[in-house]
């Protein structure tokens, strides 16, 4: 812990913070690698910089639509500008009325038929992309993830792999020769949410009592940001989302690490005891302990994540402590209660959580 920058403020933006202080000697290898990659990754979730098949298909359609609408704009705009300039009433003219024209059937026919044809073209282009995205068949190498929206965080479960994590989704990059897209089943535990990582796919809502799905097939490694895109309550704004696209090797290492039960060290036994004796365990799960709550994020490998509170703060000692002490100071209206621990217990619990690599 000694290398951490003590001055880092808890709720600083976590945008560009793959700082070297994160390189803990004990950190898993992949997080070191990923920091190099992610430091270069764009943090602008630009829909015109797609990095995944569905986003790519949408991007191509959108360029097509933009070109057509752009041409329509140019034509109509030019007509308007011409009319405004050319037919302006001039003081020099006499007061007589201009020729009274009531209409023209030929003109009306022309500006009905041409738009109909344009609509048909746009419609077929659109229908094709709807089909290729919504009716895609998952190949055999597909990774399956269940995403569950909560007020105000994301639960990610890999049912086939027995891995549970939160807010930061890890997926492998897909090789066209050996495709490994990720199909995400979308559920909600409470209100409506929407899963949106613009560079990977369009958004799809998570609606209670309903099973939705989307898929991504990233072809570039990196970290992609997104956030909840359906108003879900007070802290809708800080329901951020990260997707780490990793090489197959990195991804398997991450899975292997996540499959391990929670790290248990005698040095932090005091903190663990506090954790297990307070209400923490009602909401949080740590595998291999009595903590099995599901209202809050699974903390088994908390330290493998770069952020806490659904991206509202970076995962540092100071912000973790502040978050436990007073969540409202980072995310007012979040459902995590202030635990009112003594300074000693707070320090102990923080140390315990920091041992969960």
């Amino acid at each position: 812990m000694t290398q951490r920058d003590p001055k880092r403020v808890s709720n600083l933006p976590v945008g560009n913070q793959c700082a070297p202080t994160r390189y803990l000697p004990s950190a898993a290898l992949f997080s070191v690698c990923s920091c190099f990659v992610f430091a270069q990754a764009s943090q602008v979730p630009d829909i015109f910089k797609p990095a995944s098949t569905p986003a790519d298909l949408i991007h191509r359609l959108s360029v097509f639509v933009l070109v057509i609408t752009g041409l329509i704009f140019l034509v109509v705009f030019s007509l308007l500008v011409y009319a405004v300039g050319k037919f302006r009433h001039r003081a020099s003219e006499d007061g007589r009325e201009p020729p009274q024209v009531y209409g023209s059937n030929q003109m009306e026919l022309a500006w009905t038929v041409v738009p109909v044809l344009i609509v048909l073209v746009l419609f077929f282009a659109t229908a094709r992309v709807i089909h290729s995205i919504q009716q895609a068949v998952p190949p055999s190498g597909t990774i399956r993830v269940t995403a569950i929206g909560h007020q105000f965080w994301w639960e990610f479960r890999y049912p086939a792999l027995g891995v549970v994590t939160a807010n930061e989704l890890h997926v492998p990059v897909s090789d066209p020769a050996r495709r490994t897209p990720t199909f995400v089943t979308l559920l909600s535990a409470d209100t409506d949410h929407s899963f949106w990582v613009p560079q990977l796919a369009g958004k799809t809502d998570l609606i209670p009592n309903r099973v939705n799905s989307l898929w991504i097939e990233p072809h570039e490694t990196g970290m992609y940001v997104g956030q909840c895109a359906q108003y879900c309550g007070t802290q809708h704004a800080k329901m951020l989302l990260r997707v780490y696209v990793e090489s197959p090797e990195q991804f398997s290492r991450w899975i292997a690490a996540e499959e391990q039960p929670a790290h248990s060290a005698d040095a932090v036994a005091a903190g663990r005891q506090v954790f297990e004796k307070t209400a923490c365990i009602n909401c949080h799960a740590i595998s291999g302990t009595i903590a099995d709550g599901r209202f809050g994020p699974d903390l088994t490998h908390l330290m493998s994540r770069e952020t806490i509170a659904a991206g509202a703060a970076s995962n540092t000692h100071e912000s973790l402590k502040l978050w436990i002490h007073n969540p409202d100071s980072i995310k007012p209206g979040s459902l995590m209660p202030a635990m009112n621990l003594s300074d000693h217990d707070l320090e102990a619990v923080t140390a315990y959580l920091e041992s969960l690599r």
Partner: protein
Amino acid sequence: MSSEPIALTAVEELSRPFSEVLYSWVTTVDHKRLGTLYILYAIFFLMIGGIEATIMRIQLIVPHNHFVSPQLFNQLFTMHGTTMIFFVAMPILFGFGNYLIPLMIGARDMAFPRLNAFSFWLTAFGGLLLYFSFVGGYGLYGAGAAPDVGWFAYAPLTARTFSIGHSTDFWTMALLVSGFGSIGAAVNLIATIVCMRCPGMALGKMPLFAWMNLVMGGLVLLAISPLTAAQVMLSLDRFLGAHFFDTQAGGSAVLWMHFFWIFGHPEVYVLVLPCFGFASEIIPVFSRKPIFGYPIMVAATVSIGFVSMSVWAHHMFTVGMSAYGNTFFALTTMVIAVPTGIKIFNWLGTMWGGKLQFKTPMLFCVAFIFQFLIAGLTGIMLSAAPFNWQLSNSYFVVAHFHYVIVGAILFTIFGAFYYWFPKMTGRLYNEKLGKLHFWLFVIGFHLTFDFMHVPGVLGMPRRIYTYEPGRGWDIWNLIITVGVFFQIIATLVFIWNVVYSMFKGQPAGNDPWDAWTLEWSIPSPPPEYDFARIPVVRSRRPLWDLKHPEDPDWQYE
């Protein structure tokens, strides 16, 4: 033009005792007075909705700002949307309809004057009820007073579990009450237009404004009814333990979305059709030509009315409809672009070959054509369902619908306000101030809403009280907020112009624009009985026929 002695009511009223004036306005059933009340009421709420928007924009001027709390921000966008749609746009359009329709069709009042007053007061009390929530309700987790569930109030956020207290109930009741008011107003408009036209005014000879209001009235009946039904269901959920939308008891969140948007999309046309009507009256007069393609304009209006009933689920492309559902609603949405495009071309055709006079109303209408063109084109982008999966619920959508609601609807409303101000008050507005208002508003509008498309494309969702720096959104949000201040100054110029001209403006005479529809044949402001003699018309431009007996319109129609 004959200039008759003019009754300067605004000044006269001041000399009467206040209680008498108040009593006469509260008990009035006169269509002109009710129209005026609607308009003043809407302008009052426009100021309130504008203040709410300004506070939100100050909060978003920089990332991680702390100007307002998240709870207050969520209330602000809920109240802003609800206010602007239900208590600004609808009432102001009903106000113009009320005031102008009888005058344009040569009638002495609306078909049901007492229903008219009843409808206005329902709408008025609806708005007051909504704002009473700041005192009487409390919201999510007891977070605050006003409703904070968003203006489309998606289930299950409105369920008792998530919205404790009464803020959501204030929202529901306010919309129920004003909804009945809207239905009453629509019934009245339809009955008036169908039954009260003066001799000679066949449906095909009505001013286009009357046609647009007729279709609008029909849409109100079809659209407000499901909204009202949904509000009743929501109240049953909240008070009697019904489970229509309560997902925790097996209800359906998507059902609410369908109910809301089968109201919500036709509602857009409820608002925009009367504005098409304004443009179709103002552009011909200031181009000195009749409207181009009148029958086609009518046909386009009616077909927009029909098609608008089958496009609602394009607001729901992201809720996981089947590929077939998405394809269907993409098609219907694109189809509506055709009659809308026809209208734009017909306005251009009207201007083509005319002698354009750029008085303030015309300036607003030309800007309307330009902005409505862009709004229509971004609408086409949103109708392409996969593109919508990216753009939906982002700032791009916010920019798109403000382009419609401000760039098209509010601009034509300002145009209409300037155009009929002389008729309503008997005095001319100040042209210089009018133009200043126009240019400041154009600058502010484009600074705010042009640049609002960009953060949407860069992944910024709507309804967030703050955002992360480093995502390329900062500069755009700054520009957007700067534009708001131009709009505020412009609006203050407008208010000043109205107040000043009401008392100090030049007398307007009957017909300051040399216009062609019946309202310009009577004194300004119109006497209580409107028409001393019920007019008889032979064409769509009765005053043209009077002014040009050598070349009357009815020879060509």
